[in-house]
């Protein structure tokens, strides 16, 4: 991390984001819809932790806009939320990297929960109020998925020396 190697294999990051976009619209059975993890937020959190010099709030904003178009929400709603998540992760970055996995999970749960509450607030402002407690479920599922996403992507990153 100390020396500045030239950027390598940046496409891997974008590939994971593309897959994340696909996963966030992939059809699921009806009962599982409310458990759909926040794929983009998970990926963003990981890459913001791993490559803070590369993946920042601008990336988050762009991805959020893409998600807005896909979901048909107001342009900027998901963008704002993803930016918020990235901001929180970046500001906790130094500590988060030191934490053991279970503690990371907890922090991720809190961050995503906050983001979902903002989401609830925004969608209530725009006129479609959603049931409150069910909105926290995706945050919970995402937090439970965090170790797998994190270890998997870390393996990928070390293998391909993404920088």
């Amino acid at each position, binding site marked *: 991390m100390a020396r500045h190697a030239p950027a390598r294999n940046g496409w891997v990051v974008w590939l994971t984001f*593309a897959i994340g*976009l*696909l996963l*966030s*619209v*992939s*059809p699921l059975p*009806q009962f599982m*819809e*409310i458990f*759909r993890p926040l794929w983009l937020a998970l990926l963003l959190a990981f890459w913001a932790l791993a490559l803070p010099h590369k993946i920042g709030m601008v990336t988050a904003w762009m991805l959020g*806009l*893409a998600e807005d*178009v*896909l*979901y*048909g929400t*107001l*342009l*900027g*709603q998901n963008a*704002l939320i993803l930016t918020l998540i990235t901001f929180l992760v970046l500001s906790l970055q130094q500590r988060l990297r030191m934490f053991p996995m279970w503690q990371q999970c907890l922090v991720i749960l809190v961050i995503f929960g906050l983001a979902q509450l903002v989401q609830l607030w*925004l969608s209530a402002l*725009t*006129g*479609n109020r*959603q*049931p409150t407690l*069910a909105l926290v479920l995706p945050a919970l599922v995402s937090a439970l998925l965090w170790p797998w996403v994190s270890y998997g992507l870390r393996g990928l990153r070390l293998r391909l020396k993404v920088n």
Partner: protein
Amino acid sequence: MVVDARFTLLKPVRSQMSLVLMQSYWIADLPERLYQGVASQFGSRTELAADNEKLKTENLLLQGRLQKLAALTEQNVRLRELLNSSALVNEKVEVAELIGMDPNPFTHRIIINKGERDGVVLGQPVLDARGLMGQVVELMPYTSRVLLLTDATHSIPVQVNRNGLRAIASGTGNPERLELRHVADTADIKEGDLLVSSGLGQRFPAGYPVATVKEVIHDSGQPFAIVRAVPTAALNRSRYLLLVFSDGRSPEERAADAAQQQESLDRQAADPSAVPSATVPGATPAATPNKPVVPATVPKPAATGHSTSSAPAAAPVATPAAMPAKPAASKPAAKPQARPAATKPATPAAAPAAPRAREE
């Protein structure tokens, strides 16, 4: 966000972005389509034979019903002529395919593979084989988003098919349930009633089945009866949908067009030999297959020229050519139209406008 909510400034940006991004719905749908393709390749022969048999009987039944329908349509046309009101006989329909569901579980929206470039317009009604499904709420170049009837923000004006009682059916967020709001406790509505769209609110065409009443609860503690209904359309199962292109013209324009059409027909019939028989109103339903694009409208009795002063819009078109048409047109329909009944056509248009129902 405010800009997007209040102005149309960002619409082009969004539609350009969707051009690329909407492919992801298509890609996400690939496995499903692949599976279906494989399944249809390996469908067994007996299965196909059984399917074929079933479809044949169904076709027979439908054909039988269709025969009756032709007679009924014609009768309807005649009766409407007696009443001097015009009505749409049929609308143009186009098939669309579902390509994605909205990932948000709290809204009921689907994405279809027809968009602005295919002529889809905002607010266009969407059907499936069994009934109304919803309306188009967002247009993208090659896809569009459809809000289903059962979304919690959607309401549709309906009437009970049995007795014409009007009500508003609101979505509940449950894909198997609609609720009729503000139905009086004494209203004549009961389990099993078919609810059809009433056409008030001018968004949905009238007469399509919407739901069947499942239960009516009279609770003395409540000011209104609680009426729950089940949508007739398979909202979460249909893969092929029908987009209805209804007529955008106002009743007056429609009447004028119909008058013109009738005149040309009359002239054609009058010219070759003076046989004033064939082109009277009975011919109109038969004329529909020729030009399916312009929804065939029932010609308002062609010779509105009788009462020029009272027909505001139809008059200028109808008068000049009405004289040659008279011998042909005034055959069977002459008696009712001779009365200055042309003042009436305004009423069917005015009535729906008044109780403009909450509908979005």
